[in-house]
């Protein structure tokens, strides 16, 4: 099945209390599946559900994007920039 490295940023980092962790994949997974698992595991992430985006290997992806062994996944709250 493999595993991915998940990186948390800004409010998501505060909510989870970690900068990064390795997450094992359960069968075929999409970005949406993975986000659902993280929301179950970290209730404090749930208020951010609608505005969080995920990246896979540094590209923002849709919920339907497949996640593969060795990927780097970013959990990205809204940006205010500059």
């Amino acid at each position, binding site marked *: 099945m493999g595993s991915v490295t998940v990186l948390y940023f800004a409010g998501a980092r505060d909510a989870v209390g970690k900068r990064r962790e390795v997450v094992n994949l359960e069968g075929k997974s999409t970005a949406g599946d993975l986000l659902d698992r993280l929301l179950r595991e970290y209730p404090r992430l749930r208020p951010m559900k609608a505005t969080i985006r995920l990246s896979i290997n540094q590209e923002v992806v849709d919920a339907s994007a497949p996640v593969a062994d060795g990927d780097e996944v970013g959990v990205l709250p809204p940006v*205010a920039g500059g």
Partner: protein
Amino acid sequence: MARSGTREVTAHDIDPKKIMAEVADKDAGGTVVFIGTVRRRSEAGDVDAMEYQAYTKMAEKGLRRIEAEVREKWPVRRVSMVHREGLLKVGEVSVVVAVSSEHRAEAFEACRYAIDRIKTTLPIWKREKVRGKNRWVEGAPIKSA
């Protein structure tokens, strides 16, 4: 194609002079530079400091992508872009974008496009310190490229 300067996220002070020097070009008639600085005022009151947190690897990829977008849209000469991370005081420089081109219209349009894209597509967050409190500045969901 003309050479380019810096495209990085840095934890060190940004020197706008250095970024401007990087886009100097004898075929350029116009250079436009945008300098973003930490403002004293925020909705919550007077700002003591602003902390920038970046997903550095993705942000630097984003800067290279933005440069490619700019070059697809305008015949610019050189482009240089730097974004800070870390703790900044009021008045300190958070971001600089410099674009040189033969004629000024392209330099203005390209520079503005680049900073708009930096602000909406780069994974960089800011947390303001106001009266001893920390607050992530609310923005919009990050746009895909």
